[in-house]
């Protein structure tokens, strides 16, 4: 029962975060929302008894992808500042 409630909360949060990530005006905020979406999906994976996937998603999906997004934005903002 507890798990069911947890599932529902996670689901709603997932959708909320996805919507926020897509509708946020600031790119860096979007990326942060994506990152938290990814972290939340880790919870979802754990709930569905998939620890391997959870670990991989946590390290690669959440960590690595976020950092790549951030680096891209970082690099381009610098370029933008120069002009």
């Amino acid at each position, binding site marked *: 029962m507890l798990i069911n409630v947890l599932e529902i909360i996670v689901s709603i949060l997932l959708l909320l975060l996805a919507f926020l990530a897509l509708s946020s005006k600031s790119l860096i905020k979007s990326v942060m929302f994506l990152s938290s979406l990814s972290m939340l999906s880790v919870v979802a994976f754990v709930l569905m008894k998939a620890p391997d996937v959870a670990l991989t998603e946590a390290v690669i999906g959440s960590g*690595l992808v976020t950092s790549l997004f951030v680096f891209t934005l970082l690099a381009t903002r610098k370029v933008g500042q120069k002009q």
Partner: protein
Amino acid sequence: MKKVLALVFVLVLGALIMNHLNDNNLFAGFGDAMLENRVSQSYIDRDATENNDGVVFDESLDLESGAANTVTAIVADYRSFDTLGEVTVLFISSFGVALLLGQSKKRIALEFKPNFMLKIGSRALFAVILMTGVFVSIHGHLTPGGGFPGGAMIASSMLLLYLADDEFRAKMRGFKILESVMGVFYIILGLAGLMITGFFLENFLDNGALGTLFSAGMIPIVYIIIGLKVGSEISSVIDHFLSEEGA
């Protein structure tokens, strides 16, 4: 307006798909998957090739796949070819990033100046994370994780160094050699399987007892290879993303 319309569209589509799947008698509902009808039951029972009485942790010897972690057994044994492909995808995208962003140049300067403590601390943390990564890779057949998260951890330890030190540039040449050698090892492992047993990527080592560190035949080796390869590839990707053109 356009956005609302698009949202309505996709939600209608989602509802339609859900409706379709609910009506579908072949499609089990959430949480009701029937493993008996799927090939995966054989993966769990380890009886894809021959009948198997049962699998017992710490006891069963020389199963057809010796990893206690069934997912690992599938990834690195039953469907090892997929994993080879997966490694290839990562390899080609890392190469592609290098190709697209150029053999650059100068790394991005960060906006804050890391102090001494940060530098030392991150060095220490670097070692810890690196060890964790290697550990995760090696224990892939026993615990959750495996080569990919392990490799990513190795890479994130490198990332830590990047973030902690403004001047830091990894030795890309070394990564490249590591990447290449590990890839070739994987292929050679597969070819060795072909030579010894007649099947490409076949496990030709003893499986040992389920659940011990030195079990599961090739799987730890494969995962170490993957871990190192993924680590070096992702590090190279990070390096390229952290560099920019100019100067």
